[in-house]
Structure formats: C-alpha cells, structure tokens
C-alpha cells in the first residue's frame, strides 16, 4: 500500500470515528456519574433529525447544530427525569428513548417533509464545510509530513476538531477540576457525595446535560456534516458501538479516543475491503468486520483481554429518604 492509500484510509478513519468519539465521551459523563446510558443511539438519532430538519428549513448549519443539541438535551432530560428523579430503571429508560427516537424521527420527518422520513437535501450553507487549516496548501509539497498535514489533519469538518479537543477537555475536567472530582465520586459512592453536602441529583443532572449536548454534536455530525440531510435510522447502531467503545476504554477519555479510532478504522477498512482478496484468508466477509467491534467488546467483557469494571454505583438509582 502506498502513502496515498494509507492516508485515504486514515482520513476516512477520522471521519468515521468522530461521531463515535463524541457519543462515547457523552456516555462517559453520564456513566461516570452513575447513570448507565444505552440511550446514546436514540439521542444521536433525535439530534441528527432535528439538525437536519432545522438546517434544511433555515439553510443554516449553525441553527441546525443548535437545534440538534437542544433536542438531544431535552431527550436526555426526559431520560434523566425517569432515571434520576423518578428512580426508574436506567436501562429501560434507555431502551425507551431509543425506540422513541426511532419512531418520532421517521414519523415527524414523514409528516413534515413527505420524503419517506428523510429531510430535504441541504443547500450549501445548511451544511458544515471542511476547514482548511493554515498552511495546508503551502505545506502539501513537503514529503510525507506535508500530505499528512494537508490531507489527514487539515480539511475536516469543525465537529471533527471539536471531538478531538473534547478528549483533552474531558480528561482535564475529569481529573483536574472540582466538577470532575464530584462527578467521579457520584458514580462511585453517591452516599459519600451526599454526606459531603453535595446534591447527588444536581450532580447527576449536570453530568447528563453534558451528555445531551455531546450527543447533540454527534447527531448533528451525521446529518449536517458527514451527510447532507437526515435519513431514516441514520445512526445505524453507532450509539451502541460508542457504548461498546466506552466499555472497551474502561470509561477513560484518552483510551476512549483510541478505541473510537480503532472502531472507525475497522469501519473504514470494511468499506475498502469489499471484494478485496487478502492473502491466505481470501475474501473476508464484510459482515465479519462489521461485527468485530461487538465481538471485541464481548471478549473484553468476558475478561479475556483485561477486565472492564465500570463505576460502582452505575445503574443504581440513588434513593434517600426524606
């Protein structure tokens, strides 16, 4: 393989891992605060739809993004009301959110736009365009490093850069700030947090608000950056892959980035491996590569490669008698 092919695959890897990474970080905030979130998929889908719809109507990608984040946030708050305030089962709340999003997006899409659930294709301004980083063109002539900078690093949508910056931000917030300390504590031992005079409920809501906003970014990426308009079930299970990545990364931000890159890479490879004859193995069924992230997660969970131990209080609603 020559440099161009490698760059092409890596370029696609970055594009494909971005929504995973955003969703994975979203899940990280919520799960670190002790709320299991299998509703990432639904929130992304809802956001993708809202972003696509508003961008189509307003012609502004930024308004679309805003709408996506707002809808994702309200979906998250609904889930939070069930899981935090009403102390319902967090898993069931997630399942419900996923179904609600799947149904509502297509239903509203069909009613509003009559395009089989799709939103109209976006005009020029309705969609984010790739950003060329400074000197990208000038440096492209430099051997090896030039193309890497100008093709691989430069020329992505703004959300791509946001996603990767969020990794550093998340790591900082989690380990270096008061908010992060409390967030981690509330996911490990909410009672300790409560007796320390901090409201568990407030802390958890703060966490899921971030989750909602990040899921909004992830969803918007599908419809107004990577794609041009919303399509039915556009997220296609990426929320679950992000969840798998979160577990795989043991709920840590930097490993989360690498896991998402790995899963994105598998996806990029899968697209390019169609009909591609590998030496010895022959043609690998595309389905095998598609299933790989799930299989890897199961293997990890089974403790064959390390052990994934989540936040201790995860999944348990915090009850305090009054």
């Amino acid at each position, binding site marked *: 393989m020559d440099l161009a092919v490698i760059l092409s695959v890596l370029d696609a890897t970055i594009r494909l891992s971005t929504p995973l990474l955003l969703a994975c970080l979203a899940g990280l905030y919520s799960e670190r605060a002790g709320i299991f979130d299998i509703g990432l998929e639904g929130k992304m889908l809802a956001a993708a739809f809202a972003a696509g719809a508003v961008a189509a109507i307003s012609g502004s990608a930024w308004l679309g993004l805003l709408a996506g984040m707002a809808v994702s946030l309200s979906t998250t708050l609904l889930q939070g009301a069930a899981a935090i305030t009403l102390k319902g089962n967090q898993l069931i709340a997630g399942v419900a959110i996923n179904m609600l999003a799947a149904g509502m997006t297509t239903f509203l899409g069909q009613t509003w736009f009559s395009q089989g659930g799709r939103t109209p294709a976006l005009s020029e301004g309705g969609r984010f365009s790739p950003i060329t980083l400074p000197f990208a063109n000038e440096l492209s002539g430099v051997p090896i490093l030039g193309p890497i900078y100008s093709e691989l690093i430069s020329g992505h949508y703004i959300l791509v850069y946001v996603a990767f910056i969020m990794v550093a931000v998340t790591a900082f917030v989690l*380990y*270096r*700030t*008061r*908010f*992060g*300390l*409390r967030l*981690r*504590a509330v996911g*490990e*031992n909410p*009672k*300790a*947090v*409560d*007796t*320390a*005079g*901090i*409201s568990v409920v407030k802390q958890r809501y703060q966490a899921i608000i971030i989750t909602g906003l990040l899921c909004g970014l992830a969803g918007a990426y599908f419809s107004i950056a990577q794609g041009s308009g919303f399509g039915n079930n556009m997220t296609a299970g990426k929320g679950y892959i992000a969840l798998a990545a979160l577990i795989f990364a043991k709920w840590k931000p930097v490993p989360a980035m690498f896991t998402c890159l790995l899963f994105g890479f598998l996806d990029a490879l899968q697209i390019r491996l169609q009909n591609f004859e590998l030496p010895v193995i022959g043609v690998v069924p595309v389905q095998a590569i598609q299933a790989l992230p799930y299989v890897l997660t199961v293997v990890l969970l089974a403790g064959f490669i390390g052990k994934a131990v989540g936040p*201790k209080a995860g999944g348990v609603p915090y009850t*305090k*008698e*009054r």
Partner: protein
Amino acid sequence: MNTQRPETAAASAPANGWAIELEKINKRFGAVHANKDIDLKIARGTIHGIVGENGAGKSTLMSILYGFYTADSGTIRVNGAEANIADSRQALALGIGMVHQHFMLVDNFSVLENIVLGAEDSGFLKPSLNRARKELDRLEKEYGLEVDPDAIIEDISVGQQQRVEILKALYRGAETLILDEPTGVLTPKEADDLFRVLETLRAQGKTVILITHKLREIMAITDNVSVMRQGQMVATVKTSETSPEELAELMVGRRVLLRVDKTAANPGKTLLEVQNLVVADDMGVTRVKDVSFAIRAGEIVGIAGVSGNGQSELLESITGMRDQKSGTVVLNGKPLSLEGDDGAARARQAGLAHVPEDRQRMGLVTTFQEWENAILGYHDKPAYGSGAFLDIAAAKKAAADQVKLFDVRPANINLKSSLFSGGNQQKIVLAREMEQDPDVLVIGQPTRGVDIGAIEFIHNEIIKMRDEGKAILLVSVELDEIRSLADRILVMFDGVIVGEADPATATEGELGLMMAGINKTAPRTIGIAEQGPLP
C-alpha cells in the same frame, strides 16, 4: 414501663453552654415511628454517649442532626441559635461533622481526594489538594491522626479509613463530631487509639457525640450518656453517676438477665471436623489461614473475634457458600465436597444447617411470602414435592408448623417477609433451620438486631438443640453472648485460631487480648478491655 426516670443530668446550662439542643424531634418511616418527641441537650466540650437497642432510633436522630434526613417536626438549636438543617452542607457549615456507621468514602479515590470532596476551594483541584495536604499535616500533628494522604482508600485498613472520616470532619472545621458506632469494626488496640484522639478533641474544646453498644466504652470515656428505647429518649445521666447495669435496664425497660441457664455439656462423638482450612475473600485476600478444630455432639463451640478477622469467611466456607482454597470439612466422619456454587446444597444434604450472619442479605428472600422462605434451601426435598414440581400445600403446612413452634408474629404465612420485624425474621430463619433436624448447626450472629425478649427465646432454643445431641458452631461478635452460650471458646485473629478458652474461667480481659492478637505483656494505656468477668 416500670422504671423510674433518673433525674435528667445537667438540666441547667453548663459552663461552656450547649453545643446542641434538640427539642421534640419526630421522624417516621412509613409505619415505623423512629424518633418520638426526642429532647436532647449536649454540653460543649464534652463527650456525650448515646446508647440504645438496635432500632431504637439513634442513627436516625443523628442523621437528622447532620441534615441527612429531615425531621417531621421539632427544633434544633446549635450554639443556642435555632438552625434549619436541610442538608449535610448546612450541618457542616454549622460546625457539625459526622462519622457514619458505614463509612462514606469513595473507595478508589486517594485519602486527599476524599478529604477535599465537597470542600474544594475553587473550580480547579490543584490548589485545594495543596491546601489540604498542608492542613492534613497540621491536623496530624495536633491530634496524632496519622495517614498517608496519597494512599487509595481500598488499600488501607478499616481503622485508617475511620481516621480519614474524622479528618474529613475536622478539615471542614467541625466543632461537634458525631461518631456512630465507631468501634464495631475496630480491634481493641485501634479502639484505644480512637479514644485517645477523642480525648484530645475534648481537650481542644470540641464536642463529641458517641453512639455505641458497648457500655464499657461509655463508662470509660463519656461525660454524659443518653439512653434511647423504641424511638424515645428515656434518660440522660452523668456517666459518673450511673452503672452499666442501670444503663442496660434503661435500654430495655426491665431488669435484664444476661446469664443463660444451662447445664454442663455432655459431649459425645465428633460430628464436625475442620482440617487445615484456607479461605480467601471476594478480593482474593486469604482471610482464613489454616484453621482446624472439631465439634462433638452435644456441645456448643463459640468463635470469638473482632469482626473482619475471618470468621465470616470461615462460616461461609464450612457451609458451602464460599470456595475453600485448601483443607477439608468432615461431617459425621465423611468428608464434605463443597466446591462449586451449590456447595450449600450438599452441606445441607449431609445434615448441616446454617443460620447465616445476615438474615436479610442471605437467610431470607424479603420479597417472598413467609411460607416461601420456610422452605428456602430445602425446596429440593421430596417432602416439598415429587420430581420437578413444588408441592405448595406441603410447603405451607411446614411453614405453619414453624411459625407456631417459634411463635413468629404475626402468625401469617402469606405475609411478605419484609413486613416482619427484625426479631421475627430471625425467628423465621431459625425455625426453618432447626426444624430440619440437622446433626450440625452453624449459627452466625444469632441475635444481631434482635431484642432482649427474642434473645432469651433464641438462646434457649440453641441450648435445647445442644441437649438433643447436636453439634453447634456459634460465631458472634458479642463476646457476652459467646461467653454465656458456648461450652468452649475459640478466639480468632487475623485468620488464625489464636487460642482456646473455657468460658467459665476466662476473663473478658484475657479474651480481649487474644482477640487483639496481643500477648499479655503488651503495654496498654486506656483500659477498656481490662474489665473483670461478667457481673
């Protein structure tokens, strides 16, 4: 209630004034009236003890003071000023700190992080951590509370964790410190250290509220003591003007006969033999280290020890609930095969019954009806249905018999088990295990959380079984219980049986020393364990 109320001690304002005044505090949990019209005044610069049976409402009252629960009614005054304590933050702001019965620490955080949590100075952690490190250094020097600030909580001992809790409160500027049963998990040595710290605190003018079940501790360290019974405050007295006997009577509401009537044991052949048993806990730490002993028919062997020294693991391993690393358990001459997660079934088949330490976590399914619990562990018996099917009528019949025999109240086998009180739940478990006519009965904490009336009944049943020629292994953290029931006492420390004692002759002091793993010549300061034999 026929006890006359002793004069409430120190009714007039003390020299330093009141640190805390509680008036007419009420708290209900559903149908349980946990605190009824509680009045309590605590003088500044004193150590104030609170005693009372399990479930008397002590923890509830302190949780109200600490803002963890809100009282249904009543007033709280702190330093003379009326205070509305809606949450723990406000309690902390008023200078009230609490060390809970179950520690409130984040296990995978460092000591420093735990101390800073909730008391950070700013949005960023670094400055807070730096300040905490310095402050910790000072507190350490001032009170002799030594801990490594960078250690992770789950790696340090229980005693150290408790220090972290105290440091947490002091770091937040606590003037009044509440300690809820702080010594339950400590070795006598650690308890001594703790009391030294408490005395230093008092010397610095701080107020300490100490909840404990150990009257000796009350007598040794407190200035005043309050007694609670069934949700009510029955008395507050000066420690110097009372005695353990009087306190016990106040707690229960009648004269307590702490002695058990029993005849001398008449042991027969060996029924249970434990050989070189090694057992690890859930974390893989070896907790039972090469333990061997034997129990004969018609005798009760008690295992004494501070909790956490391997007794639970020993019990669980003998009864097939926990895999053993090595060693054998021989029952009635035949080795028991206990491996696999259904070892308990084979132990039962071989004739070993088990009353577990924690009835709600283990011995009962609290969401089941009483009759369903009456066959738990024996549901596979042909008596409760042939083949794969369950004979509900037979099970209900057995349940009704058990309820009658053990006087379980209410005598309703269709009632959900969680609706029975602690003592009655314990009776349900005892009835089930004893009615199966086992050869060996293993009992853990038979009277934990059980009131005095039920204790008498349970103790008598245990003696009766012994007299029928059963072998009984008794594990209890209540030294008094062991001393009054057992025919032989084995003392366990750090996973080893460090000695055997005859309950008739051994003094509490000797036993205490063994339990602490200290030989008799070790130097001591505050002499809590240095008491004579039982009255």
